[in-house]
């Protein structure tokens, strides 16, 4: 399998507290802080973390919706972060995005046909069979009635709207799709429909997915590999089987134990993390997770643990990695 997308040492910071036009900002939010990843073609990479960990920013920098502060995003060997003009427009055909909220990501004044066909207009593509025919094909592909071409978004339910968003992302026949929490705004029974649809489309069209979510149980159903993020950094990355059966980083252990168990007879040992995620403006020294970690020692405060390979399929950034879930 070849690499479809490679992210090398990517940084994204946002200035905060700027008082006047020429003044210096008071600080920076380190949203993405030195992330390296690669996605093989036809593979799904899950990115998991809590709000504020930088997972959505990472997705947006990958698609160049936000410019990177430093680092590279390589798409077939071309750096997306440095691309401009016509080159960038061409690159965008290969990488598309599905958004979280199916209500705010569709223009309420445009018909479904116009929404789904818009990427073709922007990229000035005229399919042989005509744009309308192509849009109707796309609607059928995602399980919508092609006759609904002239309807407006408000006539559809949340799940159907998310299907419209998926059809739009497929219009340019991309190779990679970044899905940012595509099901978290939907009802449970509809979530399952959309997750299954995404899996079917992947097989049919040989797509690579970057699946961003906060819920480890959703990610398990779609991902081949999972990366766990905390305060802008990847703390653990492994193949799905490996991560769920053999988690090593204490944060991953805590996230896994926090997933509610849909079985009243089963009692799971729960790791209750104290406190909240620290501010990304002024992250803790050394290991960023140490303020909430039960394994933390002085070493963790002084030295930042690098992301190291512990087996062929598993990387972890922790001084004391290990599966023992018991905090003292």
């Amino acid at each position, binding site marked *: 399998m070849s690499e479809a997308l490679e992210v090398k040492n990517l940084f994204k910071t946002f200035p905060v507290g700027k008082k006047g036009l020429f003044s210096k900002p008071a600080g920076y939010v380190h949203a993405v802080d030195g992330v390296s990843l690669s996605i093989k073609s036809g593979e799904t990479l899950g990115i998991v973390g809590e709000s504020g960990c930088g997972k959505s920013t990472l997705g947006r920098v990958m698609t160049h919706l936000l410019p990177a502060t430093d680092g590279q995003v390589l798409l077939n060997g071309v750096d997306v972060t440095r691309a401009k003009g016509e080159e960038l427009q061409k690159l965008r055909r290969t990488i598309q995005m599905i958004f979280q909220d199916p209500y705010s990501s569709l223009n309420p004044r445009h018909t479904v046909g116009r929404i789904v066909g818009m990427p073709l207009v922007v990229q000035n593509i005229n399919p042989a069979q005509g744009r309308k025919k192509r849009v109707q094909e796309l609607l059928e592909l995602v399980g919508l009635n092609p006759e609904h071409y002239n309807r407006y978004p408000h006539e559809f339910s949340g799940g159907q709207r998310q299907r419209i968003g998926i059809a739009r992302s497929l219009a340019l026949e991309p190779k990679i799709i970044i899905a940012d929490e595509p099901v978290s705004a939907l009802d449970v029974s509809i979530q399952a429909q959309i997750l299954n649809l995404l899996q079917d489309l992947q097989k049919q069209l040989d797509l690579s997915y970057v699946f961003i979510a906060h819920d480890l*149980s959703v990610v398990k159903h779609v991902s081949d590999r999972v990366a766990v993020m905390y305060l802008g950094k990847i703390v653990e990355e492994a193949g799905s089987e490996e991560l769920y059966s053999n988690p090593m980083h204490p944060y991953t252990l805590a996230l896994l134990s926090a997933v509610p168990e*849909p079985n*009243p007879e089963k009692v799971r040992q729960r790791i209750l993390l104290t406190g909240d995620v620290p501010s990304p403006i002024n992250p803790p020294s050394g290991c960023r997770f140490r303020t909430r970690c039960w394994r933390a020692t002085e070493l963790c405060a002084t030295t930042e643990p690098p992301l190291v390979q512990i087996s062929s399929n598993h990387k972890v950034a922790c001084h004391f990695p290990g599966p023992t879930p018991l905090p003292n």
Partner: protein
Amino acid sequence: MSKNILEVNNLCVSFNTSDGQVHAVDNLSFNIRAGEVLGIVGESGSGKSVTASAIMGLLTSGNVNLSGSIKLNDFEIVGAKDSEVRKLRGSDIAMVFQDPLSSLNPYYKIGVQIGEAYETHHPDASKAEVRNKVIEVMKKVGIPEAETRIDSYPHEFSGGMRQRVVIAIALINDPKILIADEPTTALDVTVQAQILDLMRDLQKTSNTSIILITHDLGVVAEMVDRVLVMYAGRAVEVNDIKAIFSAPIHPYTRGLLNAVRSLDSAVREKLATIPGTPPSLLNIPQGCAFNPRCFYKQWVGDKCLVQKPELHEIGNGLTACHLSKTDIERMNKDELPVA
């Protein structure tokens, strides 16, 4: 068995809109015992939040049609005077809403907002008394450094801490019933675990009855004693928590359970789904409202399309389904068809 603290009988709520009548709650009956945690489960538009508003006596505007009875310790809330209901609200029944940011006023210190709930029902309390009470309840819900945090504003708190503030407001008058409407949906998983833990502890120590409204069956499994499943404004199943998960007696509950994700499933395992979408409340299907999405209607026949099933007993639970007892056993034994 302790006695019922709240009894809801034949509650119907509809709204007049420009598109027609929206039947949000249709002939709903249930009760809750002292110290019990009741879960109300359903998808968006199933009427669970409207039910909560009705119990709180908040459905008073002109376009609401309300009928039936809601009795809190023999006090009838439906049709009661606003001034009477106001005495109960915040003292006997309290509510925690989904979004902690929008349920707090950004302009007031949190101490003032928590204290207001106490002062309203204790008009004679002195300032010092109120402040002490606020600090006490803040400690109870696990807000650290309560003595100094009492003078902070909502924006100085994180999402989880804000939800603790909202819970403190609800608990300051030791309510008999706490209604929690999706209390953890807006929170991160690790924070959700903290808040659920807190609610469980508080429930045990104070013996408050809780109505937990949620769409997340995982949360239900961890928290509640009994479950009321709603679909299109009607109760479709009322059952004990263990029965809901081991042997549900309504196809919709069965479908919801199959769609639940668990960490126990295999990597990239496909989920069973319920086909179709929940109906519009302007245009509820004839007969059983669930019939267009129900796989098992073929076992019953046309009855599902014409006759509304009434809630009746099967085993220890109640179900509103035309399936016979043997059919339901068969439903729970068979593999579900993957749509």
